[in-house]
């Protein structure tokens, strides 16, 4: 394991755990931004430059900010001394641990164990663009449509209801 | 509205920018400690005592009548009469002040002391750089700090000083005219 990977992985996991454990919601959102940035670093380390930058732009630049806004808009009359976890937290943790155990055993018993990089692999922007415009043109259009619908839908949902006249 | 206003405004600021290098009226700053605007003649802030001649202590016009002390609204003037007398400008023997203090930290520049003084002894100064490191001591001006020559008065308020000089000259002339027949009839020596 290379040092870069270990550093990025530790950063990502620690901040992800912090997101789930911190009491202050704004701290959660900031830790989330760190997680996303760490993941972007891992993508870069895997030679996926375009995806890494897109991850930074979309997640750190947009989603984290969106979440921060949502947190500030929904703060208020909640009792602060309540536990951050819901009543059935034990079950949830149990499920999460079981899922991780299953995934980890599967990974460690699979062919992926100890698999090394098969030489250089690079995804240039031109190649990605060409693929998007030829092989994946339909998904691209559908994704564009989905984004437009989501944009309009989000605006309509979050819009304040008109006062009855 | 297609941004013409913005271009017009940009033109105006550009004219200001380049104009400031060539034209005086586009650079109006006076760099204060080095450069100063000329004093306006009507400027006034705190009172001072006028003296005639060379020696400030002898020439002081004040006769310690204490009218200003009584009239001063914030009561910033403090006068102690001296027992000895000295002649004034028309030769009459008058009291003089032993102590004459003005606390300019209290003074409100109302000029009432100047208005009430019958001897033209107290006038308004234009000195404005009065900052000190000591709030009390240095702002309490004593007689020696307050005394300023008539020449200084002429310099800062020329028109007013000319009027005062004319009035005092007239009084002196009248007194001398009165003294002459008196000297002719009696042998009382007249004062210079």
């Amino acid at each position, binding site marked *: 394991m290379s040092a870069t990977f270990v550093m990025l992985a530790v950063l990502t996991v620690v901040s992800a755990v912090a997101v789930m454990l911190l009491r202050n919601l704004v701290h959660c959102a*900031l830790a989330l931004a760190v997680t996303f940035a760490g993941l972007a670093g891992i993508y870069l380390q895997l030679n996926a430059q375009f995806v890494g930058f897109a991850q930074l732009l979309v997640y750190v630049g947009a989603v984290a*900010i969106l979440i921060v806004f949502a947190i500030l808009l929904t703060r208020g009359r909640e009792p602060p001394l309540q536990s951050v976890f819901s009543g059935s937290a034990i079950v949830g943790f149990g499920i999460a641990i079981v899922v991780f155990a299953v995934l980890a055993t599967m990974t460690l018993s699979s062919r992926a164990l100890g698999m090394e990089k098969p030489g250089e692999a690079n995804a*240039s922007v031109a190649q990605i663009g060409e693929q998007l415009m030829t092989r994946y043109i339909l998904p691209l259009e559908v994704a564009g449509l989905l984004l437009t619908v989501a944009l309009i839908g989000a605006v309509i949902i979050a819009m304040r209801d008109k006062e009855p006249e | 509205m297609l941004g013409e206003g913005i271009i017009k*405004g*940009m033109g105006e600021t550009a004219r*200001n920018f380049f104009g400031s290098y060539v034209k005086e009226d586009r*650079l109006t700053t006076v760099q204060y400690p080095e450069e100063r605007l000329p004093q306006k003649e009507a400027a006034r802030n705190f009172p001072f005592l006028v003296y005639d001649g060379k020696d400030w202590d002898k020439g002081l016009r004040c006769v310690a009548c204490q009218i200003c002390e009584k009239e001063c609204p914030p009561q910033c003037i403090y006068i102690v009469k001296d027992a000895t007398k000295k002649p004034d400008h028309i030769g009459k023997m008058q009291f003089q002040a032993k102590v004459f203090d003005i606390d300019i930290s209290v003074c409100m520049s109302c000029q009432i002391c100047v208005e009430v003084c019958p001897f033209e002894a107290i006038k308004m100064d234009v000195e404005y750089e009065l900052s000190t490191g000591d709030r009390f001591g240095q702002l309490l001006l004593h007689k020696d700090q307050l005394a300023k020559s008539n020449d200084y008065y002429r310099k800062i308020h020329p028109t007013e000083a000319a009027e005062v000089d004319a009035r005092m000259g007239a009084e002196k002339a009248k007194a001398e005219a009165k003294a002459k027949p008196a000297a002719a009839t009696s042998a009382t020596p007249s004062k210079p």
Partner: protein
Amino acid sequence: MDQIFVNLKDWLVALFPAGRQQELVSALISVAALIGTFAGLFALTTVLERKGLGRIQNRYGPNRVGPYGILQPMADGLKALTKEDVVPRSADQVVHFLAPLVLVAPVFLALAVVPMGRNMAAVDFDAGILFFFAVGAATELSVFMAGWSSRNKYSLLGAMRAIAQMISYEVPLILSSLAVIMIAGSLSAVTIVEKQAGYSGLIPHWFVLTPWGFAGFILFMIAAAAESNRSPFDLPEGESEIIAGYYIEYSGFKFALFFLGEYIGLFAASGLAITLFLGGWNAPFPFLTWIPSYVWFFGKLLALIAVFIWVRGTLPRLRMDQLMNFAWKFMLPMALINLLTAGVWHFTPPGLARWIICALLVFGPYVALGRTLFESKKLAKRTYSYAE
């Protein structure tokens, strides 16, 4: 002469043993050069800005420290360093401390992809422009961190305004640069500059000298001014209403860092504008190519900064609703139309017809938008009760 800095770096790197160590040294030299150059430029810009604004307002500006006041930044720096660093008691200490760092680090990173001369880009990413916008996104987070952690209503208001403004103007910023990326066919800053090399007669092949490029340049500059919170889009700071916005609770060196970050962000945006529209480090005329390329880059950079200062000295601050209306109702449609125009330009054969079609395509919507936007407002002639 042109390659003097490149050769210097190569020579320095060659002093070290080949391999991993050389890469590290090369990166370190690039970073040091970037930080040194732009911190110096920042110092120069602060004093030039204050002097320029002074001249615009019929006064001298700073002229006390050193000859003509050019040592003013040193005095400012000393003052910032020696000032007490006050942190509000109820502030979120960690976030409050991190916010200036989160601002300064990405803006320097963004500068790394801007080519500052022939072979003088610190890194040449395949997706360089995307990298620029991606790290620029982190500045929004830092603004929020500063505003929220100060535990001050003014700073939170300022941060919210700043984020709303930055997100709104990021859309036209990216869309207007997208036109260039479309025509150049590359996301790499170095390639985009190379595409603008060459001259027809005396006229350089800069993108700003095409209808869509010109419109894109104007849109980009407006959006860049809004992105870096420059006047007339400096509502987040708004001294007269929310005092200093998100840096109200910052003092001393942390404030200086914010100030630095803001200016470096401005340089980065100007540098990108030069790269995308003004031909990067290319000389404006073929007979001037003997002047080193970095001189051209920094000359253009200073010229753009002068434009920013000039605009700051001229235009009053916008109101929040005007700002948002301007972004979504004018900038965004114009940027989209500009994108379309760039496409038309690409597919019509060169000639006068192409020029006329594209100019009409840009100018027509501009007039239409400009007229309709304000027609609906029914601006009445302003009357004053007391002033004549």
